[in-house]
């Protein structure tokens, strides 16, 4: 009799399969149907570039690597090259030399140029993680189209900028 039970159970499975199938399809359709009715309120895309003035990218967005400077034109980059080493693509190149430190009067490693080639960057974020002094972070700019690739090479430290005081002492 066991085989009979089995076959009956299987038959029941056949019909419950149909029932389950139709039910789950209707559930799916009701969800998309709700979206359809609410598309005006809930639209998750935005009308760009009309909203350019008010558009604010969300914080997690990785647009490009930037180096913030404060009002005295000072940044936090010590020229340690940790980011250069961390980058898997060779995107970052640090040009540094030993300059005279005004305070201590000693010669010391200082950054000359922090070269960042946006065109080669995969936005992996390893450089930002590697930086011991949080000198670089993510910028939210995404309008990066230019007419020549060379415009994508950027020097992140502004001309004439200096290292912020106290950054090195903290370590």
């Amino acid at each position: 009799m066991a085989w009979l039970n089995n076959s009956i159970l299987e038959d029941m499975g056949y019909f419950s399969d149909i029932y389950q199938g139709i039910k789950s399809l209707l559930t799916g359709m009701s969800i998309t149907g709700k979206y359809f009715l609410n598309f005006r309120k809930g639209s998750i895309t935005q009308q760009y570039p009309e909203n350019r003035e008010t558009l604010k990218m969300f914080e997690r967005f990785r647009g490009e690597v930037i180096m913030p400077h404060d009002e005295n034109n000072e940044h936090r980059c010590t020229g340690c090259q940790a980011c250069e080493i961390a980058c898997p693509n060779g995107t970052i190149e640090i040009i540094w030399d030993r300059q005279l430190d005004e305070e201590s009067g000693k010669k010391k490693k200082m950054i000359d140029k922090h070269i960042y080639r946006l065109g080669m960057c995969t936005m992996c974020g390893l450089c930002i993680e590697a930086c011991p002094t949080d000198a670089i972070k993510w910028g939210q700019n995404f309008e990066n189209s230019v007419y020549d690739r060379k415009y994508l090479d950027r020097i992140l430290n502004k001309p004439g900028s200096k290292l912020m005081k106290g950054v090195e002492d903290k370590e």
Partner: protein
Amino acid sequence: MLLSITKNIHEWLFSLMPENIASIVEMTIIAVIYLTGFAVAGLFLVLMERRIAAWFQLRRGPNRVGFHGILQTIADALKLVSKELTGTIKADKFLYNLAPYFVIITALLALAVFPFTKDFQAFDINIGILFLIAISSIGVIGILLAGWSSNNKFSLIGAMRSGVQTISYELSVSLSLLTIVLMTGTLQLSEIVEVQKNGWLIVQGHVPAVIAFMIYMIAGTAETNRTPFDLVEAESELGAGFHTEYSGMKFAYFFLAEFINMFIIASIATTVFFGAWLSPFGITESIPLLGIFWFLAKTFVIVFLMMWFRWSFPRLRIDQILTLEWKYLLPINLVNLVVMAIVVWLGLTIQF
């Protein structure tokens, strides 16, 4: 009004020239009208699909070209017309060039038999439904040819899947329509509409008709190769499937035919289940011209349903597709056919 105009033109033409020339001219005029309707319907359906897809996905959709993007698909069509027609060296040139026409001409042929309104039907053949079923299976030859002659393995896989799918689902489409034919007792589309003056067939046939309609919708969606049955051109697996190697206008033919086929499947459903051009409860029976409006309104509701399917359901695997057809739809369909026969035999249909 429209009908009297056509009658006048008809008489005027026949008074102007000898009979056989006049009838050729008349046929040409009708063909041009249908071709225009075909192109407009295709372009409109593409636009509708894109807007509705956007709304289902909480996007905005095309809204730049023209007022709210109305001209978007016309711009796309112009772009496609101006594109170069590329092809592969190893393609079988003759079949490769022939394939798009197969697809588009079968789509056009099917369009001819629909009763858009009383008397507005190009070809009232007495085996209307059989004709539609036959025509809709010819379209797949175009797809098979395209895949075969492209000499591209992705195209070939897509085309073969299409063959498998169409051959299987053809059965369900035919059987579900047959269920309804049991009630009407005729294959002629104008007669079928006539029968529905006592209530649309989906109401007349109640339970078995609703089941037949559901099966028809599933199988019809599969016939048009649309999601969730779009294995034929599964982008994530096969590139573009059977039309990978096509460009420009030839690609546009495939694309348009796909949308027209959707319209055709919806039109068949409208004609057979929802009373074609008959207005609900006969509210506008005195104005036959409004029949076109009712026909198109019903058709677009069903088209919308198919679009709803497309943007809700994930794609099926090939074995799941075959399981669905042979293990579920076909047996249900056969049982349903018997149920319908009993209903008709015992006179259990609902008549108004």
